[in-house]
């Protein structure tokens, strides 16, 4: 008997046969496919009991009420809070994507200190001790005004705490980032006197004359504007949109009036001229300077002249004026795009003057002149000797832009330490590179930030803040609304990382400094502080999550509308012109799908951005085919302005005025988040600041530019 090939053949066949008649084959086939259905690297979300928390979103000044769906105590979805006075159930994409900020790759997870050009982890205790030490030295030097601070806004207890900290420290140098709110306050102050701000009753107006205000591009409180706009059809309310580009607002308006960039003020004054000429105005409350103003506009803003400046027909100006006057509840609103960057006081005042002339002030559907909300009552600040010294000092500048210019101009440091809270000037101010230079000139920069963004990168110490989902804070809404809602942000989960509420960080710091400063911050936690300072409304605030402070017009309605002071405009302040002498004008575009400022966008928001705005890493610039000589639609081009140049892609758009280039605002971030950063360019890099005399605002509405094929 010899073992030969065939024996092995038998062996093989036997084995195969044996396996075939066993369940192995069938089971393995099934299990291998089931394995692909449950790949261990595909996450399986944990199930559990469903619960809802309500809070407020403060990703933008809109401050909408939100409802957070939680499963097994994990937040899984953010939605608009039904019944909330501002947004009543609606929500914008940024708020809905809010959860992504919790786990943002660029979040600051612990306090950081800069060693060389790298950041190193450090404990809260050490960080605070270090900062306190630096600050103590400044005070020893006897020049406490050399501590400066930049925050995002002025309203609410947290900005007020920073204010209080500086006061107690002895420095007047508190600056806020440009915002629609500050522009409106400034306008109200200029035309109606101190302590006021403006609100616009969009829901009830029947003729809205918008000077580029992006009602559905994030102007004011976005969701409430969306709702007001959506209800127009039902109410038969008209919207005329005046701007160089067919924005979404212009697209849904009843009439789009294309106008040369930066000439909005001229058109507004031109319309004033027509109204005054036809004696179609109500002067009962006009105080100073109306006659001088009337003469000024008659001479300087005759329709014929304005038509030339703005690039529209004389007839149109008169038609618009006519319709504005004839309307039952006309309303003129200022603030190009989001009304945040590059706004001019002249423009705001000119546009609001239309409201004054037509006499809709504090009328239903009109413009409301409201007292700034004052629901906060802080105990009297205690100043020690050093603080007294600083208190006497002049503020270095009128606006954050001017402040930055001064820092750069100065030879040796005029500021020894700088706080930045919830602001990203190194990205969102015009020509950020100059802002970064300025920061380099400050020996010690402390950033109170949730994210390692462009500004935080420039800091020497970063104190990590809770996001709006992890913190407690009161957020008064204004943002051009006629109602004054104070909302309460409440934590929906424990801080994900080693972060603190800004208030707690300040209290911690004050305590470390001791002395009178500590006395000014004599609270155990920020929560206690909030309870104290909002004492008047705390109970209903903490119970309902918001308090509706009834609008407080300048005077009560029956006393008639507020006085109007024309002296500012009567002098016909000069209109800011676009810098440079290239043939085209580059204007930034505010796009609802991009936040444009602080914080940077969420991955979801970026995902919604059209490929007509961003392709791969290239930003797309809009140009009218008429002016696109030598360019190819979708092709590459080099965009040059007096302050910079950038590689871009071109998009032929019939919806933009010939001679104008449109570039979206909010791209081109440079920090470490591959889903959001290094996409396109930051339009602010290409635009230089233009400080408006009188207001100190950076009023650069755009800049001259040229574009060429590459």
């Amino acid at each position, binding site marked *: 008997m010899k073992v030969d090939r065939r024996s092995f053949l038998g062996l093989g066949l036997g084995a195969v046969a044996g396996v075939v008649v066993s369940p192995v084959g069938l089971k393995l086939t099934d299990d291998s496919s089931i394995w692909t259905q449950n790949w261990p690297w595909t996450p399986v979300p944990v199930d559990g009991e469903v619960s809802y928390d309500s809070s407020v979103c403060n990703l933008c000044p809109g401050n909408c009420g939100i409802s957070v769906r939680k499963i097994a105590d994990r937040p899984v979805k953010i939605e608009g809070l039904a019944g909330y006075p501002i947004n009543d159930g609606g929500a914008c994409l940024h708020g809905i994507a809010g959860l992504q900020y919790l786990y943002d790759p660029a979040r600051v997870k612990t306090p950081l200190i800069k060693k060389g050009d790298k950041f190193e982890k450090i404990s809260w205790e050490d960080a605070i001790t270090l900062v306190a030490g630096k600050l103590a030295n400044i005070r020893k030097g006897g020049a406490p005004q050399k501590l400066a601070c930049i925050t995002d806004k002025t309203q609410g207890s947290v900005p007020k705490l920073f204010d209080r900290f500086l006061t107690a420290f002895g420095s007047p140098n508190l600056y806020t980032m440009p915002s629609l709110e500050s522009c409106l306050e400034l306008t109200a102050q200029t035309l109606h006197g101190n302590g006021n701000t403006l609100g616009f009753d969009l829901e009830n107006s029947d003729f809205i004359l918008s000077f580029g205000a992006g009602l559905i591009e994030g102007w004011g409180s976005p969701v409430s504007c*969306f709702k007001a706009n959506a209800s127009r059809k039902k109410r038969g309310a008209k919207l005329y949109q005046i701007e160089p580009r*067919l924005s979404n607002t212009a697209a849904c308006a009843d009439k789009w009036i294309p106008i040369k960039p930066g000439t909005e003020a001229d058109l507004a004054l031109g319309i004033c001229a027509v109204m005054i000429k036809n004696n179609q105005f109500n002067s009962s409350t006009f105080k100073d300077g109306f006659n001088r103003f009337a003469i000024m506009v008659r001479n300087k803003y005759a329709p014929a002249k304005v038509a030339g400046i703005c690039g529209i027909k004389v007839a149109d100006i008169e038609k618009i004026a006519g319709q504005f006057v004839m309307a039952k509840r006309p309303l003129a609103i200022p603030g190009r795009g989001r009304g945040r960057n590059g706004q001019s006081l002249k423009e705001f005042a000119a546009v609001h003057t239309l409201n004054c002339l037509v006499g809709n002030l504090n009328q239903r559907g009109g413009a409301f002149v409201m007292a700034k909300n004052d629901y906060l009552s802080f105990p009297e600040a205690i100043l020690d000797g050093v603080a007294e010294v600083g208190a006497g000092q002049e503020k270095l500048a009128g606006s954050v832009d001017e402040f930055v210019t001064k820092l750069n101009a100065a030879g040796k440091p005029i500021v020894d330490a700088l706080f930045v809270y919830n602001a990203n000037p190194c990205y969102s101010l015009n020509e950020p590179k100059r802002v970064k230079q300025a920061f380099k000139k400050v020996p010690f920069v402390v950033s109170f930030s949730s994210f390692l963004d462009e500004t935080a990168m420039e800091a020497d110490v970063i104190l990590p803040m809770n996001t709006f989902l992890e913190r407690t804070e009161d957020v008064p809404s204004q943002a051009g609304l006629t109602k004054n809602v104070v909302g309460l942000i409440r934590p929906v989960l424990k801080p994900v990382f080693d972060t603190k509420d800004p208030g707690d960080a300040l209290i911690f710091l004050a305590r470390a400094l001791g002395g009178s400063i500590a006395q000014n911050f004599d609270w155990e936690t920020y929560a206690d502080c909030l309870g104290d300072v909002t004492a008047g409304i705390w109970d209903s605030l903490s119970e309902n999550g918001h308090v509706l402070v009834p609008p407080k017009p300048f005077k009560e309605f029956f006393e008639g509308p507020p006085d109007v002071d024309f002296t500012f405009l009567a002098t016909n302040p000069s209109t800011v012109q676009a810098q440079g002498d290239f043939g085209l004008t580059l204007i930034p575009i505010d796009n*609802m799908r991009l936040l444009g400022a602080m914080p940077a966008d969420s991955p979801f928001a970026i995902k919604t951005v059209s490929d007509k705005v961003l392709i791969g890493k290239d930003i797309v610039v809009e140009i009218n085919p008429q002016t696109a000589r030598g360019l190819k639609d979708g092709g590459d081009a080099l965009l040059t302005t007096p302050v910079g140049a950038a590689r871009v892609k071109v998009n032929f758009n*019939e919806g933009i005025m010939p001679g104008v280039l449109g570039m979206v605002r909010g791209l081109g971030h440079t920090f470490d988040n591959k889903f959001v950063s290094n996409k396109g360019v930051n339009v602010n890099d290409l635009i230089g600041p233009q400080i408006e005399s009188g207001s100190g605002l950076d009023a650069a509405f755009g800049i001259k530019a040229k574009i060429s094929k590459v």
Partner: protein
Amino acid sequence: MIQDKKEHKFGMVIDLDKCTGCGSCMVSCMSENNIPFKEDESRKKDSITWMRVYKLTNGKSFPDIQIAYLPRPCQHCSGKGGHGHSPCVSVCPATATDYGYDTGIVSQIYTRCFGCRYCMGACPYHARYFNWWDPEWPAGQEKYLSPNVSPRMRGVVEKCSLCYHRYQAARDKAYYEGRDDIEESEYQTACTTACPAGAIVFGDLNDPSHMVHQIVKPDPHPDPMNKYVVDKSRNPKVFRLLERLGTNTKIYYLSEREWVRKAGDNYLDGEWDKVKNHHGSSSK
């Protein structure tokens, strides 16, 4: 069982004059349905967006140009003659997608799908998306995923489900409370509830008490001009995408603007003027 008691036909009507193209619906959908994201989402042909907002223009030049936005979820076709043979359902070789005759919703079962992508070829709306990559979330971010929608694995097709899990949740509640059926307000999709302009109306096209039915007024009789077309709207301002193909979508669109309504389908030269005033059969 509940769905046996009453046959639903869930659908939507989207007011394109109210839609501002803000993108809330897209993001609400993404966060509701565990949609992944990757570094470059600007290549729209491989970017998963169950709800996609298209930009339409009237093709005129400055300054007469107009634009409109058109949100496009899965159209949940009921197929030629409304028999449930949707373009995608009829071609799927493994029954990974089916037509729910109780809801009118076209399903997609990720664990059944083996990724042949025939359904994607068959869908003229590009409403179906393939998972070319393994879904990946930055560290920690998987914590916000919802257990109500199963995350998809690489190599399968996915699409809008009209938030079916919300229907399930509503039914669970109804069962618990011993009710036979659910209220209109109990089942609303994530895009509907998110729309800040209130442009989306969602509900049961079979139920005259529902807003969507009242706006659309679906015609019970087949379109005399095309026997494959059923449930044509009798509202002159309402239209459907590619209605002439006989896909019989359940997502309707509403617009006052004629050019927008015309953009909804394809017409030979001069054809539009003949058909534009035809809205379902005369029956009222």
